[in-house]
């Protein structure tokens, strides 16, 4: 399991950063990161080979974040309506991450991956969106994001 420890130490921050961009919340990001590596641990224990560790981690992280967002959909919506919660966190939070929170899930995933300088090909593998529609979706999502930030 030395292999696992190396992976854990080198990629922990990367996975955490991705999760934080997805969820915009430190605690949730830590939880998701833990889950991702737990998943990796069990895979390695079963002696399943992972060919491209980085891509695998991206994929699992984005999938776990998506399912997390699905689960807590109602809760987060409620959070937006409650100004008291926002005021406390405002200082820590970054404007873009807050704006990302308000966008739809597909745009959010694409933009997050885009900010990590991931190629379109890998985006297709991770998200399952068609290659031909990634450029279109991205350009629209960027415009939407700008609009959201100016608001």
């Amino acid at each position, binding site marked *: 399991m030395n292999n696992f420890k190396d992976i854990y130490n080198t990629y922990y921050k990367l996975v955490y950063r991705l999760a934080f961009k997805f969820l915009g919340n430190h605690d949730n990001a*830590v939880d998701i990161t833990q889950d991702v590596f737990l998943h990796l641990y069990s895979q390695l224990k079963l002696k399943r080979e992972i060919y491209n560790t980085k891509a695998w981690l991206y994929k699992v992280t984005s999938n776990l974040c998506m399912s997390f967002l699905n689960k807590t959909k109602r809760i987060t919506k409620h959070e937006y309506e409650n100004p008291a919660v926002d005021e406390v966190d405002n200082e820590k939070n*970054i404007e*873009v991450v807050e704006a990302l929170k308000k966008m739809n899930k597909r745009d959010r995933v694409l933009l997050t991956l885009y900010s990590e300088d991931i190629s379109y090909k890998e985006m297709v593998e991770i998200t399952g969106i068609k290659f031909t529609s990634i450029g279109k979706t991205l350009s629209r999502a*960027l*415009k939407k994001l*700008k609009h959201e930030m100016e608001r």
Partner: protein
Amino acid sequence: MKWKGNNSKCMSDEMIQMYIDNEIDEFEKAGMEKHFAECENCNLRLYEQKKLIFDFKQSISLVNIESIEIPEFKHEKTPVIARKKYRLFYWKWAAAAAILIASSLFIYKKHNTNIQDDVRYIIFDMSSEVDANKPLHEQSMSIYIIDKSGKQIENNINNL
């Protein structure tokens, strides 16, 4: 703003995005570069999109995670989250019913066997003559109740 209708040569937003991300083949790229040199509108849009991307990447790079400490990995399983409520509800009632039925059966059986086990023989002593013509209070009959080991549980009951 859609330029596609005005001039068939003009680029769509999608193409511009892909051009910036370097995701189109060399042939198309050459054609686009040629077009950007000629068309002012497209050039402007290219510039705007580039700025949009630059702003986005710069602002998201503010996500600073250098201060994050890498915690020690714990490979325990996460606590199991309870299933949906209605299932739990059913199970609760099913378990309660099962327990109720089992316990009532157990008690019933025990109650029955108690009597059968303890009282084995009931002997009617018919030595004294029974005369049906006599009035009831003058007649006599004795009953011995004897258990398994031969002990007499109850005394004979005279003068029923």
